[in-house]
């Protein structure tokens, strides 16, 4: 556990971790690092899977376009500016009214 922390730049030495970090902090950082390394592996698997689909041969134009579209969507999902723009996008009045109708609030 200490080695894992030191390898990721947390703490200057084992003695530093032993005396200057609380037990909770050591466990917290270790858990976060484990989670991050698993997330990285998961992300790599996603990239690999998407890349394999993108690089596979297409037998007609429509399938090629579809693949290109899904690859673009995937790449955009890794772009923070695009993701945050999507989250912060203001809804049009019509979309807002549709939402209200969906939740059964009367809109004239």
């Amino acid at each position, binding site marked *: 556990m200490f080695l894992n922390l030191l390898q990721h730049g947390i703490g200057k030495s084992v*003695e530093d*971790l*032993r*005396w*200057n*970090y*609380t*037990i*909770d*902090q*050591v466990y*917290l950082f270790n858990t976060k690092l484990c989670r991050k390394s698993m997330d990285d592996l998961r992300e790599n698997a996603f990239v690999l899977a998407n890349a394999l689909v993108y690089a596979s041969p297409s037998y007609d134009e429509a399938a090629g376009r579809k693949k290109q579209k899904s690859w673009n969507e995937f790449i955009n999902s890794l772009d923070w500016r695009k993701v945050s723009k999507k989250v912060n996008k203001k809804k049009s009045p019509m979309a807002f009214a549709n939402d209200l109708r969906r939740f059964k609030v009367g809109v004239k």
Partner: protein
Amino acid sequence: MGKKDNKKEDEEILFPEVKVKDYVIKPWSFGILFDISEMLEGILDKLDEKNIKLDSMFSDEGFISYTNILRLFTIASKDVLEIIAITLDVDKEELKGLDMADGIKIATIIYKQNSEMFVKNFMAPQKSGGKK
């Protein structure tokens, strides 16, 4: 979707310091835990001598009442004093000069900050009825 009450938030873990008078109280590090393990053992021995079960001092959620903290002080004052001195990194004599209310406040904070350690390491083996 609230988190469990007794689960510490990240902020609590990252910024755990509490100040009482001039003393900064921080949860134990692994180094301190090794240093105080002898005194913790001493407290358990003294409780055994008096036929007091440690888990009877804690509620089911692992909380200890003010009265039971006072009981612990009375039974194992030397060990408790030593633990507080090591935790705060001050001299025992200096702690003896503290007034009772501050002393109990500091002891309570130390317990609260490290309660998980008590519950996990000291109550669990006793509750299960023997050594691991």
